[in-house]
């Protein structure tokens, strides 16, 4: 028999595992939003819709792949393909047809354009996928369970949750960091994020960078959705939930900061799962409380750089 402390210590360990998986999902959807905000300075409300559409598309494509006889292992790459398709098609369309027309306008108008888009896409999803739960958990079942010892007992976790989600998130983080630091395009994106005026003054083709970044952000949003689809059943209203949380992450992280997004996601993920264990009623409040606390101490966000006001 374990004492209170030992038992709770073990629970804390479990909470860590759950928090990690949740953090991975939060990170995937928030990092794209943060990247887009950093470069375009547009807070994209429709990011939540892209997430939802990515999830739906992944489930549908997975079901289609299975019915057309693709082997079971294909259910994992299908998630990536669906995300790339959704982001790769919708991203450029949205950037070219809508956002492009309003870059010169006030930020609130840009925000509202994406809000309008969000409303339209919400109904569009319903039109395409209906209102009944859509699901395809092939990817989750593929890898089966992994038993984590828990005292004399054991707790089964899905390998998907334990390895795939954090794995993809870490790969995304490392890949993004490498891309932004080591490639020319990446450096240009960073330059635009840090000082838009200076970067455009240096002759950077902002239009191309905007298109690229937005598409990239859209793919990340869709990927976030696609990754969540094997464990969740998809119903209307998915996007609205996701986007508020991502907003909180972006503001907490600091604009355009991918490491900040990762750290914030981790904080949110862990505190949420710890809350579920020890203070379930506080669970929904944690992301917002974290944000308020962080901004009290660091008004520019965790990794944000104070904008120098030139006089």
């Amino acid at each position: 028999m374990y004492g209170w402390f030992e038992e709770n210590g073990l629970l804390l360990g479990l909470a860590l595992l759950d928090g990690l998986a949740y953090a991975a999902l939060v990170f995937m959807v928030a990092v794209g939003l943060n990247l887009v905000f950093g470069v375009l300075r547009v807070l994209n409300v429709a990011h939540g819709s892209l997430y939802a559409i990515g999830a739906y598309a992944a489930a549908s494509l997975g079901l289609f792949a299975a019915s057309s006889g693709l082997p079971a292992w294909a259910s994992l790459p299908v998630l990536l393909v669906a995300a790339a398709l959704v982001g790769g098609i919708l991203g450029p369309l949205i950037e070219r047809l809508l956002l492009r027309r309003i870059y010169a306008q006030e930020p609130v108008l840009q925000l509202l354009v994406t809000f309008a888009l969000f409303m339209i896409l919400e109904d569009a999803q319903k039109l395409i996928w209906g209102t009944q739960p859509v699901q395809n958990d092939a990817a989750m079942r593929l890898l089966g369970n992994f038993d984590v010892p828990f005292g004399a007992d054991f707790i089964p976790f899905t390998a998907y949750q334990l390895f795939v989600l954090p794995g993809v998130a870490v790969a995304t983080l490392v890949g993004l960091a490498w891309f932004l630091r080591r490639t020319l395009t990446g450096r240009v994106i960073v330059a635009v994020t840090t000082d838009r005026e200076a970067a455009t003054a240096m002759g950077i083709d902002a239009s191309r960078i905007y298109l690229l970044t937005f598409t990239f952000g859209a793919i990340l949003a869709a990927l976030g959705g696609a990754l969540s689809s094997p464990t969740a059943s998809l119903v209307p209203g998915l996007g609205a939930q996701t986007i508020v949380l991502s907003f909180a992450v972006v503001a907490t992280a600091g604009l355009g900061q991918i490491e900040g997004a990762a750290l914030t996601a981790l904080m949110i993920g862990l505190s949420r799962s710890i809350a579920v264990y020890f203070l379930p009623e506080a669970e929904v409040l944690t992301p917002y409380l974290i944000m308020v606390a962080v901004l009290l101490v660091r008004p520019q966000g965790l990794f944000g750089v104070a904008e120098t006001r030139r006089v």
Partner: protein
Amino acid sequence: MTTSASMSRRSVLAGAATSGSLLMAGSGAEAQPAKPAELKIGITTFLSGPASVFGVPAKQTAEMLAEQINAAGGIGGVPVRLSFVDENPGTEHLVGEFRRLVQSEGVHVVFASISSGSCLACTPLSDEMRKTTILWDCGTQRIFEEGRHPFAFRTQGYGTSEVLAPLLYLLKHKPDFRSIAVINQDYAWGRDSWELWRAGMDAMKPGVRVVAELFPRFNSTDFSTEITRLLALRPDVILSTSWGGELVTLVRQANERRLLERSLMVLPVAEASLPPLGRSMPAGHIIGTRGDHWVNHPRPRDKAALDRFVNGYQQRFNQPAIYPCHHMFQAFSALQAAYTKAIAAKSGGWPNDQELAAAFQGLTFDTPTSRITIREDGQGMEDQIVGLSSFGTLPYAVPEKMMLYPATNVSAPVGQKSVDWLKTLRAGLENTAGEAI
């Protein structure tokens, strides 16, 4: 068939201009109306958001039934016409729409709401506008226990019977359980249903240890943390009154991680989520349907009618008819019965609002599975059937070892508050309240 979709903007504007006179009709319930050209029914239901899982099938059912009724000559010779309102935008929008339905559309009757909050907001309006309102799906016990609503009638069961029946089933099926955990959606039904359950459980089987009370955020898509905690706690029983996509997600995630091998689940609102769950729903857990309308009901009142309805729906919409479809059926059935009764009482004359409402008092109407009587407080007495999940010919789970609980055995008597009544229950009721069928 005419539904709201065909209503043009112009007709709404015209309605706005002429409804001064309609108001008169609405408030003067004693006026003697002539037989109208159409019987207008306003229906509030979820057309967007997560609860559209229920709302849209119900809407489809209403359209199908209206078509059938009209093909058969309408109600009392008058064809019905439906207008739908989306509940999702919130109360402030909904009560405005309720007024529009009554004052501008001039509906004769309103079918109100899936959400309890919507019902609570609409019933006072039914009092004020003296417009017969059928509460066709919402379950909150607060409606008729906290006030009198002479124009509102619920044509199905409610939270108390829908929670008590599975509790009684559990007490009989697994009388030796010692610990329980609850994982409900964090909103009124999730909280209310747990309060009802707890009151009944503590009265009939004191001393059960409640090891966890989890109320994850409404519309959550990830329950892995909660599941881990439940796996670690190993409660004998896990109760969840969740519904829709969330229940599907919860059961799938729980099943994948073999939680359902460790604990017995009690799912009072399982039925609508069983088709999408398919084989992910393991056998041997307690499932309910907010009524008695299981597709495999062993002895329905009218087998042919049940098959006709269920198969007709399946064929037309390529989906199984889930419980909201049945609740919509009940609302239509009650409406037809009430009009027949009112017209007969008036020797063939068309009833006004007051007379229509009067017809609902003590009304008995047929459903494919049984017969429902509306009590003097407006509450419908719908029997409950609970069973254990099992697999037969269908690709999804249906109940076996079913117990039927007559509504009068599992409903708080008129004038008593549910929680107070549940506290008076005593052990042994599980052996007398229901019968195996």
